[in-house]
């Protein structure tokens, strides 16, 4: 009964469109950072935290793609089930465009 309740709750939320951060048909990556990624990549990826700083990373797109898909045991969860290739491309594009807050706010 309890499990049924929990599951029906999720269905209700899904029906209400509360499943995934999306904006204009795209993954809402800044929002995704505020709910999930930012737990370790602080300030939207601009600052290190439990995980490394993503802004100005010298890692290649292929490296980042692989790391998002497969994670790193004991450090970062694997998100291969969560994100499509297109989603991951959007996350990489977000990371490449990251700028310090002050700079971003003056643009």
């Amino acid at each position, binding site marked *: 009964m*309890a*499990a049924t309740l*929990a*599951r029906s*709750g*999720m269905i*209700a*939320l*899904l029906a209400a469109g*509360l*499943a*995934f*951060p999306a904006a204009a048909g795209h993954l809402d990556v*800044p*929002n995704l*950072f*505020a*709910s*999930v990624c*930012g*737990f*370790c990549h*602080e*300030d*939207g990826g601009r*600052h*290190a*935290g*439990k*995980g490394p700083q993503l802004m100005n990373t010298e890692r290649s797109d292929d490296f980042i793609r692989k790391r998002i898909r*497969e*994670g790193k*045991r*004991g*450090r970062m*969860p*694997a*998100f291969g*089930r*969560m994100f499509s290739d297109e989603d991951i491309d959007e996350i990489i594009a977000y990371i490449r465009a990251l700028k310090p807050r002050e700079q971003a706010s003056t643009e």
Partner: protein
Amino acid sequence: MRKQLLITAAIIGLAVSAMPAGPSWAVDPSRIENAAKNPNDWLMYRGSYDNWQYSPLDQINTANVKDLKVAWTHTPGRATRGLQSMPLVADGVLYYSGSYSRLFALDAATGELIWSYIPELNEDLIAQQTHSPYNRGVALGHGNVYVGTVDGRLIAVDMKTGAPVWDTKLVDSEKLTVGFTGAPIVVKDKVIIGAQGGEWPWRGPIFGVDAKTGKKVWEFFTVAGTEEAMKTWGNESWRTGGGGGWMPGTYNVAKNLVYWGTGNPAPLYDWAGPDWKTEGPRPGTNLYTSSVIALNPDTGELVSYFQELPHDAWDFDSAVGEFLRIERDGETYIVHPNKGGYVYVYDEMLNFKRAWPLVKNINFIEGVDEKGNLIGRRDMREGKHTNLCPAIAGGISWNTGTYSPRTGYYYKVGNEWCMDLEIVKTTPILEPMAQLNIGANFTFTDPEGGKAYGHVDARDPITGELAWRIDFPEPPLASLLSTGGDLLFVPDARGVLRAYDARNGAELWSQNNGLGHNGGIISYAVGGKQYISVAVGWGSLVGDAYPDLFGEPYKSMATDQGWLVTFTLPD
């Protein structure tokens, strides 16, 4: 009263008694209820239902601790995220769990292996979990060792042989992502364990399971577990409420009550700010999150509760803390620390008595009034905010403090750190599997006027009066231990185990264990010898923030190693 306590301690404290009898393989409920009276054993998480995390043994004491030497070590292997568990001892056998709920039974005098049990877990799931694959401890009873798993199971294995007895799936972790990392406790004929929760969009249940058969008897949802509580979650937000009970509580034998601390609601931060009663992601007080609850262990029914943080908007769980049972002047008090940095004092029915701050840097509230209401709440709307204290990791973390009836002091780690944050409107992500729901971007900061640091305080547990304090450049993240030899053991974050005079804080001995401490420490006796056993290993989610906050030695500190180190005096 303190004199009375001392006399009591002298009677039950005893020196080590030579107990040559071999393992009896039977830890029945009455033995667990009387755990504090047999100092040779360490039968449950935090030592006894009194939760003192105290050993009356006094063979190792302030005069001879300088001679303490390593007796043996053991490594569990696959120590991903270090070794965070609390070993237990019964009849000269030490039982402990490593990451992935790997179980070991060792000769407690020599470390020699008696048996091991390596459960097969859902490795694909573990690769997708954040709060994983560490395990924080086991429970003993009814001839079994009990351990939870991160893929949502509670397992019983035979204490004597390590053979599996039962294996019960309690949580659909493949869907909900969360499972079990905290230790269970045994209460009469039940094993009780709480699920992870907090920032995870579910309802964080606590389970009562038949100790002999593994059959689930009851399940209490820390989020909206009653009709009354459901009304405190506007817009049906209880469906993704968070909560959980990810650390073990304890049991009050006389009142037949299980005390448990609950996790925070999700999302952690609330864009509605001061309008949280009617607006935002979870309008209302959000019962029974960030609360202490008292359950009937036979039925799982709620008997009493106190919500420490109504509508917690800062991620300051009540799940972190011990429930010290302290008797003073004819009154019985239950003392429970909250992650926000306040220590709460209750009577046995969880009626609020007072709260006192352990931590200096607290500004999420201005205080707690005489009825337990929060004064001057800092409810932050969507947008940027600076210098929120404590930081998300809390003024108090999950490892346990210790209370010595000899000194009357409660020894507890306080964390001094803050953070800047930007609160963002988020939505729960549930498909294909549940994801964290933080609700903010944040950055750790130093407190105003100084660096982030930690301290171990010796205080009166009821009034909070400070006797003395030891500062540490980084907060220790391991459990503490006090003993009948008037010693206080502090396993620090850099990897040094330190012994202090519990009466005045003078450092008497230290040993570098080579890696940060982030787990348990106990004392027990076998064959007339007292031992101290400590978990060595680094890699919790709080510790993960140390490289950026403090630099070395944390930048290069291994997070995939761990071992148990056990000390004794030379023959």
